[in-house]
């Protein structure tokens, strides 16, 4: 799915991201952990070609993401409010994103009704622009919009931090089943090592821009992370 070689991004001579080699595969749920400033969000932005890398190459399905724009058709992301068009109502935003993914209005409506549990009735038909929603609800809107195009690669930056407990638990289930059933590749960053070890099949631990641990998710991963973060 994604192949990174010799990737380097530095600000004022300090490496923000430095990854020699990394491959991500379909069906993997990758948990990205690390303290503030480890380079998680920078890595996400690099994956989406939102910042210019200093060196290296990122291939998505074999194509360089800077040369071709094909990756946009199967990649979706939600990093922050910068991914929402805040003067639209949620419905308008969904139809807009849907349209860009060749979905008709009816398709979008079908899709939304299948996710109505996730919404919790807090989003649709509220008569508000996105900018007037709370941060947590904006996050829900962003995640749903990202799922709209049925992506093969999904990138979520700290999804658990802004969601209410019920939605967090639902999201954990959703991510697991999407990776299993649709063979999606999902990358999630989080400070919540509990959720991460539960949801991820593979965990990448970042420190000062580099990936220092690449471990299999689950109980043992949780213990390993606790050991790591305790002494820091």
């Amino acid at each position, binding site marked *: 799915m994604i192949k990174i070689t010799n990737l380097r991004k530095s600000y004022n001579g300090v490496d923000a991201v430095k990854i020699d080699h990394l491959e991500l595969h379909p069906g993997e749920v990758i948990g990205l952990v690390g303290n503030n400033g480890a380079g998680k969000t920078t890595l996400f*932005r690099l994956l*989406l*070609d*939102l*910042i*210019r890398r200093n060196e290296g190459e990122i291939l998505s399905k074999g194509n360089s993401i800077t040369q071709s*724009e094909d990756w*946009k*058709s199967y*990649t*979706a*992301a939600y*990093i*922050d*409010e*910068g*991914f*929402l*068009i*805040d*003067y*639209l*109502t949620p*419905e*308008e935003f969904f*139809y*807009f*994103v849907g*349209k*860009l*993914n060749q979905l008709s209005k009816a398709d979008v409506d079908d899709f939304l009704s299948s996710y109505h549990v996730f919404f919790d009735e807090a989003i649709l038909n509220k*008569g*508000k*622009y996105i900018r*007037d929603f709370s941060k947590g609800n904006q996050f829900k809107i962003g995640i749903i919009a990202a799922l709209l*195009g049925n992506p093969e690669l999904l990138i979520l930056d700290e999804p658990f931090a802004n969601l209410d407990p019920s939605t967090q638990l639902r999201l954990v289930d959703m991510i697991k089943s999407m990776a299993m059933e649709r063979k999606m590749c999902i990358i999630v960053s989080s400070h919540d090592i509990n959720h991460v070890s539960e949801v991820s099949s593979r965990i990448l631990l970042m420190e000062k821009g580099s990936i220092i641990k690449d471990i299999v998710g689950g109980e043992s991963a949780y213990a390993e992370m606790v050991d790591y973060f305790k002494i820091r």
Partner: protein
Amino acid sequence: MNLSVFLNHQWLNFWRARNANKSLAIQIILGVFYFLIFIEIAAIGIALPFLLKEKMPNINPISIYTSYLIYYFLIGLLARFQLQELPSISIQPYLSQNVHRIYMLRFLNVRSLFHYINFLPLFVFIPFIIIVVAPSYGPTAAFCFFIALFSLVINNHFLNMYIKRKTINNAWFFFAVLVFIAALKGLDYLKILSFEKASSSLFITILNYPILCLIPVAMAIVIFIKNNQYLKSHLYIEELVSENKKKESKNFTFLNRLGDIGEMIALDLKLIFRNKRPKSLVVLSAVLLLYGFLFYPKYLATGNYSMLFFFALMITGIFISNYGQFLFSWQSSHFDGMMTYNTNMHQYIKAKFSLFLTVCSLQFLIASFYGLMSWRLLPIQLAAYLYCVGVNSFVTIYVSTFNYRYLDLRKSASMNFQGIGAMQWLQSLIITFGPALVFYLLDHFAGFWYAVLGVSLPGVAGLVFHESIINWLVSQFKIRKHKILEGFRER
């Protein structure tokens, strides 16, 4: 915690705001610009008494001056609706601090007084009072007269804020006042009732009995207290910011046929109509359509075709230069999203061009009614239109790829220089004065039709080769894409 601490914070906020870190050149240009405005207004204030004496030597200048004051204050109130904003958000961080509410109220009210609209009248009042009023009525009366006028300014200031806070729909009130002023003026004009005379005798009474200046002072105090009372019971963030209407989803069905590009245009239209700053710019463009009535007759009479062409450029192309100066910056708050949604840059740029083409064509069609004034205007406006869509639109898109400044959509447009850089000044020079000069030269040396043809041709060429031009623009955009993104992320 007293008022000076709040004001000090505001002062720091002003100088440390992100867009205060503009390049020195821009700051100097802006400084000169402000300075010129102030000088001009002061010059008007000083010249006014002499002008009045010269033009109407038989009539006492004071009685003329005072007869218009009623209109001055009414129109001032109207202008305030548009130009003045409620200072509400700035108290947010203090609400949870150990600060008495009464201090915050005072701060809100005092802070709001620091607005250029309250200082400008002084430049008109003071010279007149010193030059004309003081010699004939004496310094005490002149001073009281000044106090009265200034109190009325303050009165207008707080009245406007009070109305703005109370009424949700300012637009209706705006039009009500507008109609009211028109009605007064109409009655004056038809000599049914003379409000000018009433205004004049009212203010001259104050000059004769200076103690009466306490009445406007009292009015100002009353409205100030009213404001305080209202604020005191409504000092919650959600209540300070008006507007709680239910928003409706809209769908521009006529754009659906254009596919993804139509969707992008619809997005731009929603952006314009749902955000303060682009909305006021576009309303301005619509008002500019009326410029023809003001300027065309004059230059038609003298046969000055290049000036006609210059104004035709403004009338048909104002949307391109007004909206286009921040083409990508309008979307700066969600540009990360725009660059990751499932659409490509070619489509994105093409949608911008299509938007220009659509609106510009609309402006051209409406402006064609000026053809009733003289048939000459039709070829002139056609040439201007072709130049605008075929050349200016592309130039504007190209220049926009150099604009890396974030823009806050919710701030109002007047005197707002956020996001303006040297490029914008240069751009407006290129797209209006350049073609006007070409037209002038061709008209002068070759003749009218050569001039029309001369500026139309590049426009037609631009339209014919629009695909390849767009491809080139996309490559330019790609080169600077990361820089734009980085700039927009810096708020």
